[in-house]
């Protein structure tokens, strides 16, 4: 069966420090991969999506970047965190537009 792993679950980082959040998927091939941010426990903001290795689309210009070095690995990064980067980050995968998306458990990032 398919599973998605996202880590760490919580992270506290100082302003100006780098960030690397990792997401891996098991049990499927060539998934579409997504990074979302959720502020204040409400709406989802799509940050990046990828339809294949090395293919990244950015939805919102910002301090973050994403990479997909392997088919089932999706990484969210920042060189220098800002206070405004705090939030709940969710990784997800799906195959087709008519299929449901599967979400990781999320990473609570607090920038201090």
């Amino acid at each position, binding site marked *: 069966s398919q599973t998605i792993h*996202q880590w760490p679950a919580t992270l506290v980082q100082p302003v100006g420090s780098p960030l690397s959040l990792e997401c891996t998927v098991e049990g499927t091939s060539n998934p579409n991969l997504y990074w979302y941010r959720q502020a204040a*426990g*409400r*709406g*989802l903001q*799509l940050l990046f*999506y990828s339809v294949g290795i090395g293919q990244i689309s950015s939805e919102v210009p910002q301090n973050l970047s994403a990479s997909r070095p392997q088919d089932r690995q999706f990484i969210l990064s920042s060189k220098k965190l800002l206070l405004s980067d705090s939030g*709940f980050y*969710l990784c*997800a995968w799906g195959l087709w*537009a*008519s299929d*449901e*998306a*599967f*979400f*990781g*458990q*999320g990473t*609570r990032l607090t920038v201090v």
Partner: protein
Amino acid sequence: AQSVAQPEDQVNVAEGNPLTVKCTYSVSGNPYLFWYVQYPNRGLQFLLKYITGDNLVKGSYGFEAEFNKSQTSFHLKKPSALVSDSALYFCAVVGGDSNYQLIWGAGTKLIIKP
């Protein structure tokens, strides 16, 4: 512009009563419609979807939703609410012009009181 609206920030229901969480959408073409649930500090879980066919779809945990094309709605329902249904619910849609990306509603917090 394509959009999804969940007009209620919060819905309060007594345990055992029926519940409805509303969702309306505006997209081009035939929509794919989804409901997800999120428990505190967790990822989203898929509940149900409408792709084509019968307008009434049944999903996990006793939830169901009805696709109404004329009203462009996809309300989530359950005949008898449980306290454990308390969570954040998201409606999402894929439309013809959304580049096959999900368009999300803002979420509705459902509170079931004992």
